[in-house]
């Protein structure tokens, strides 16, 4: 059996991208990403940031996939598909080919065993689709929350799945690698994806789960300014109770997360997150945050919040608006008899 028959052939392309998903996945693996791929039998056919082949050598690889000379198991796109101007894709040409990434993806996707959208741009359009969306940027199979996108809602890859959306801006390296490696074993079925095509092993959690500010959240003891320790939901824009992701159950860069870092979750795993404004301030109606947890009756939330606020321990209240712990947890003093 030739090398490429025994292995999983992976092709990674970049569209209207910042390259951040690649920068993130390069953190993967105890002995480096390349070693980790090899250990799992992944043959990286080509990746724009890391492969030796350049220019016509790279185009030959893409052409060999189109002509069926090389089997394509996983096709990954990082970055949105810029369809503009006027559906020509000219805002994002693949250099040296006189063809747009839009065109290349339409042609390559039917050859792929699975198609993975790496990051929220490739999944839903992401940041390039913000505001006036100057380049008519969309995701591979979604345009924001609407199905469709570049490939169309009906698209299914050779092995029968819709595009698998590893959302996030940028996604955790583990989300990408675990999806890739699960697919090398054909271990993801349609039922393993949520309504926005996200793997459920990530999307069944909320970014809020495991937040280190949990005690402040319980008492609605809120930070009022950046760098304060309290809950970021009431005033500083945090959407972690509405955004999917196991962000606070993993460690980012050895132990971080957005909320641990002291700033709001901006729901970067959600389609359309880029459309928000005032990311670091909570939108409110009559003093009550608009974006409350979706599956909880609002009246109950408000009532519980009022109750917990009135029950807030002094320690929690004071620490919430300080950037260092000003009141440490009390000690239970047990007197020992002489």
């Amino acid at each position, binding site marked *: 059996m030739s090398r490429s028959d025994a292995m999983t052939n992976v092709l990674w392309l970049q569209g209207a991208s910042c390259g*951040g998903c690649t920068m993130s996945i390069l953190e993967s693996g105890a002995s480096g990403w390349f070693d980790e791929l090899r250990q799992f039998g992944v043959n990286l056919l080509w990746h*724009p940031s890391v492969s030796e082949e350049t220019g016509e050598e790279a185009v030959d690889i893409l052409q060999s996939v189109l002509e069926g000379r090389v089997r394509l198991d996983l096709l990954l796109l990082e970055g949105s598909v810029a369809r503009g101007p006027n559906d020509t894709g000219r*805002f994002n040409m693949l*250099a040296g080919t006189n063809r747009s990434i839009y065109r290349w993806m339409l042609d390559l996707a039917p050859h792929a065993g699975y198609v993975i959208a790496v990051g929220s741009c490739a999944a839903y359009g992401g940041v390039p689709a913000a505001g006036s969306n100057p380049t008519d940027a969309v995701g591979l199979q979604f345009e924001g929350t609407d199905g469709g996108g570049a490939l169309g809602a009906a698209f299914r890859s050779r092995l029968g799945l819709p595009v698998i959306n590893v959302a996030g801006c940028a996604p955790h390296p583990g989300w990408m690698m675990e999806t890739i490696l699960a697919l090398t074993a054909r271990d993801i079925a349609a039922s393993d994806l949520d309504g926005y095509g996200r793997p459920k092993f990530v999307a069944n959690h909320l970014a809020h789960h495991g937040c280190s500010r949990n005690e402040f959240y319980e008492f609605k003891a809120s930070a009022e300014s950046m760098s304060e320790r309290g809950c970021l939901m009431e005033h500083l824009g945090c959407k972690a109770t509405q955004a999917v992701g196991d962000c606070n159950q993993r460690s980012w860069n*050895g132990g971080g997360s957005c909320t*641990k*870092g*002291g700033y709001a979750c901006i729901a970067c795993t959600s389609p359309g997150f880029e459309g928000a404004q005032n990311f670091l301030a909570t939108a409110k109606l009559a003093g009550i945050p608009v974006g409350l947890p979706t599956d909880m009756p609002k009246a109950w939330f408000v009532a519980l919040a009022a109750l917990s606020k009135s029950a807030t321990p002094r320690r929690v209240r004071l620490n919430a608006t300080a950037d260092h712990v000003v009141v440490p947890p009390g000690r239970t003093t047990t007197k020992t008899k002489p």
Partner: protein
Amino acid sequence: MTRITIGPFNRVEGDLEVRLDVESGRVMRAEVTAPLYRGFEQILEGRPPLDALALAPRICGICSVSQSVAAAAALREAMAIEAAPNGLLATNIAHAAENAADHLTHFYIFFMPDFAREAYAGHGWHAATRERFAATRGSAARDALPARARLLETMGIIAGKWPHSLAFQPGGTTRAIDLGERVRLLSITTAFRSFLERIVFADSLENVLTIASADELDRWRDGRGGDFAHFLRLADGLALSVLGRGTGLMMSYGAYHGSDGELFPRGLFGPRAAIEPLPLTQITEDVSHAWMRESSVDPAHSSTVPDPDKPAAYSWCKAPRLSGQPIEVGAIARQTVAGQALIADLVSVSGTNVRNRVIARLIETARIALAMEQWTRALRLSEPFCHNSRDIPNGSYVGLVEAARGSLGHWMAVRDGRIERYQIIAPTTWNFSPRDSFDVGGPLEQALVGTDVGDAGARAVAIQHIVRSFDPCMVCTAH
């Protein structure tokens, strides 16, 4: 005359196309194209100014912190506040981690693999170089990628995550560091130093930084292990010091701001080969060969509107000029302007070229590794990390920083609490600019002219070395 097109020009950040007119095996003219436009300046217009902190970093996944810090600097000027000294230190530590990680990524993942190509199979050094540096297969990546990941754990402590963090605010950083975390930061910088001393330099950083001239560097290199000496031997064998010569004009906006100035100062390395004050008001952008509509040449007053069918245009990149001249930016410019002894000597002997650009990056990496240790120790743990303000009056503001690849500027105009205009000139906008209205090419276009490609045409490996020696960031270039 034959025209050859090279693309996708990979192992750079983003995508790139280079077209060369070749006669008798020699490049007569070069055109450099940034083939991607996303429209960040248009996206930012009309938004609340603080939204730049969330969106601007997403211009670039490899220099995300630089984009954050530039936006934060413009907003700081708008708010007329001072950042908390701890916030400046923490920003510097994180920014240095990103820049050092970028220098490593460039050296190990983007640049060195070209020497492992079959084109060099006849050279005595090729087998060892291929074993060490071949793309995705070489042993060096097994050292460099884990070291990079460990260095980026700095971000987990200071910035929550990388890339794309909201930790960098006009008034400082969003997370106070405690004693345990300071020790963890020191442990990361110590591990990074150890990687540099064992794997890259095979010498202590202090020793490396005593090398003050081209001659001393030759002596230091002889018989030395490590990847830097490996590169220096290749550079000599392949005469990389005469490849990809720049025009000699360089600048730096000044890097790593502290309460008492900058680690690397601001300045211009001008036509008299001396360091001069940088005339910031002389920065303009020309769109004669960009798919962009004419606007003001002053970034403080211009806007960006694509014009995809414009005749004579060939890139989404505008052409920035300083006093009408193209300028080279990057580590070599920063270290020349800073008067770093070795780099100043190399530049005085052979100017900017493939070899000297790479040396400057690694020497700078040694310098910032030492600075990271000092900044970490200088944090005053009981004091604030962030000063807060939300008041942004109408006006025009600018944030100037040094990214890994060179000078990065954000020009922001605010009106009635909204961004009226936003202009970004990134390092590779300078280095890979197209021609201007006087038909003067950008630094890379000029550096490619005269290169001998022989019969290899588009496969000439010399072109690969020249282009990658600038460490282009194409996603930043047109943004």
